[in-house]
């Protein structure tokens, strides 16, 4: 496009990276948090601070709890709107499911209730409940901050309307891959980037060093995560088999189900469910016989209460990367084994491995932390890219009197420090809002979005100095906000639950101790950064360094960047 391959790739890297960089920042950051989503749930829901539990007895504990499940009010309202008529007073139940991992103390149960919709025979609404599997006690509905707010943010930005957030995240992931490939073309001396970081040089130089260093150092990680994330949602982005090949795909799926000997539809004859505990015992025996003993991760009952009901038992993937369920299926009425899933064929095994690599169900705490470090290094790479964009242009923009750099800088403040401020604000709100507050979870979410909006306004309001090619004070001020809110969250955890760090550390309760430590470290780093920025703003010689004209670097090949 621009006469040379390298210049064209630079253009692609710069402009696509800039526009989607803000989304990527969010996806990488909340993805990093999602690695410990269950642990964040423990911090935010003090009643669930106990050790992870195995799947409890279905016959003794889960069966009566499933029977009490009712559809969620908001899903009923949505179904009524969808159908344009009121629903029957009680909807027939279709399926039950229970899901747990080696990190879950509490257990979530769900039921699917059939909705009579002639246009969609599979139409249904959900009911769900969280229980304490030690006692069978039903826990109050609370927002699970890690797994129900941070994790969906990573997947779809909470923009649920027509899956628009999922498409945006998918496009951003593709741009990340393109940015990596074009970035490698832009920076030819990959090996040298690994050992180059000059923090003492001007901001433009050191931000580019850090951008290259993190980009190259974690290149395989940065490539695999967007790619595997896209592969997980391939069917959403390219619904080829759901549209033009729909009849073919439907026929194939039904053939698969028939080959397994599983009933596709209910018989319409009521029937009692046999002992599920006995089926679990058989499933565990089958897994042992295949040399992969394990615990139950996911258990479903399909066509509940019908003569065609069947029970599917899937293995928790705690001991391997590949996400295989090794499903074993039983007749719900007779309890006899209907089908044991064989090892997946070639392409499906590759996919199982890649999906497992992304979703990390395995039990390995060191690897888990490396995932967080990889994700955060992605944030550093994207963040320094944004900072570099501004600092490369601000002198030129200041001379020409245009304000492009100013607004990009304000958005970068919002996407970097503002995102942290909002994340800490929801944690503080989680500890401060009264337990009996109606729709407490909604208020927590509002505190997040409101704080983020405030940080955007603040970043715009304080951005005027960028027009004079100076540093926006918003960076420093939001760093102070991070330091304050981070410390406040730790303090509030102590005041509202009594679990202070000395206690949780002594007890070795890492979900809470670890998160408190991360919060304190975040607060400490933010305070140190704010002080340094303050010093730079006051000290004229430091200011000079950050004002070094862009031309200084033109002799170096990387300066072609952006």
């Amino acid at each position, binding site marked *: *496009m*621009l*006469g*040379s*391959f*390298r*210049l*064209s*790739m630079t*253009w*692609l890297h710069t402009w696509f990276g800039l526009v989607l960089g803000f989304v990527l920042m969010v996806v990488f950051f909340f993805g990093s948090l999602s690695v410990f989503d269950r642990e964040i749930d423990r911090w935010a829901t003090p009643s669930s601070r106990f050790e992870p539990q195995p799947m409890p007895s279905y016959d003794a504990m889960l069966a009566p709890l499933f029977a009490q499940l009712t559809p969620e009010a908001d899903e009923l309202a949505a179904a009524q709107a969808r159908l344009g008529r009121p629903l029957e007073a009680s909807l027939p139940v279709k399926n039950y499911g229970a899901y747990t991992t080696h990190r879950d103390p509490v257990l979530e149960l769900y039921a699917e209730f059939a909705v009579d919709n002639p246009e969609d025979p599979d139409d249904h609404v959900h009911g769900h409940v969280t229980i304490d599997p030690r006692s069978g006690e039903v826990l109050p509905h609370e927002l699970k901050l890690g797994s129900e707010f941070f994790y969906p943010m990573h997947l779809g930005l909470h923009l649920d309307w027509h899956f628009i957030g999922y498409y945006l995240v998918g496009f951003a992931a*593709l741009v990340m*891959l*393109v940015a990596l*490939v*074009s970035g490698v073309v832009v920076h*030819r001396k990959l090996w040298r980037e690994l050992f180059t970081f000059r923090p003492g040089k001007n901001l433009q130089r050191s931000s580019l060093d850090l951008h290259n260093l993190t980009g190259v150092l974690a290149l395989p990680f940065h490539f695999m995560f967007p*790619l595997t994330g*896209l*592969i997980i949602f*391939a*069917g959403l982005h*390219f619904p*080829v*088999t759901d549209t*033009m*090949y729909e*009849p*073919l*795909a439907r026929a*194939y799926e039904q053939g*698969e189900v028939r080959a397994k000997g599983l009933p596709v539809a209910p018989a319409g004859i009521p029937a009692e469910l046999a002992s599920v505990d006995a089926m679990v015992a058989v499933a565990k025996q089958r897994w042992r016989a295949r040399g992969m003993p394990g615990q139950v991760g996911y258990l479903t009952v399909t066509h509940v209460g019908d003569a065609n009901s069947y029970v599917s038992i899937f293995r928790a993937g705690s001991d391997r990367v590949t996400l295989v369920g090794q499903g074993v299926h039983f007749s719900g009425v007779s309890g006899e084994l209907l089908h044991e899933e064989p090892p997946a*064929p*070639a*392409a*499906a095994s*590759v*996919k199982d491995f*890649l999906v497992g690599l992304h979703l990390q169900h395995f039990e390995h705490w060191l690897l888990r932390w490396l995932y967080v470090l990889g994700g955060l290094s992605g944030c550093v790479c994207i963040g320094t890219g944004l900072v570099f964009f501004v600092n490369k242009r601000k002198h030129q923009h200041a001379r020409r009197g245009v304000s492009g750099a100013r607004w990009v800088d304000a958005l970068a403040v919002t996407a970097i420090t503002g995102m942290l401020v909002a994340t800490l604000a929801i944690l503080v709100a989680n500890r401060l809002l009264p337990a009996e507050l109606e729709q407490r979870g909604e208020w927590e979410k509002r505190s997040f979005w409101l704080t983020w909006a405030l940080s955007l306004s603040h970043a715009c309001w304080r951005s005027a100095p960028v027009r004079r090619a100076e540093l926006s004070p918003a960076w420093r001020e939001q760093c102070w906000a991070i330091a304050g809110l981070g410390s406040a969250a730790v303090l509030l955890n102590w005041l509202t639950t009594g679990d202070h760090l000395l206690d949780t550390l002594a007890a070795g309760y890492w979900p809470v101790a670890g998160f408190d430590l991360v919060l304190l470290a975040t607060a400490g780093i933010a305070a140190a950064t704010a002080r340094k920025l303050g010093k730079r703003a006051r000290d004229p010689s430091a200011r000079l360094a950050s004002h070094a004209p862009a031309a200084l670097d033109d002799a170096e090949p990387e300066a072609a960047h952006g």
Partner: protein
Amino acid sequence: MSVLATLERAKRPSPTRVQLVARVAGALLGSYAFGWGFIALGVAGGSRLMPFGEAQTLAELLVFLVLVACLCWAFAVRSVALVWGVLAGAGALMTLAGWLLSGKAV
């Protein structure tokens, strides 16, 4: 390196705004069409060699790497018309070929 250097010497005037919009649109829509065609043809062709589900999985594993190549190529190539022609054109052709293949398969 020398090839790059030669290319770099042959600098051309920056594209106009219209050219830029046409290229970005061609790159995005064309790549999507190409990806769609890749899966359509991959599933229809592949399912003659392997089960339908395997063909679909294989196409879905590869398509995003294909898209990365499409997008990079769309910005490297000289002519905007070529971007539209090759990406959207091949996408449409592959979709059609897949459709015909699958029709015979039924």
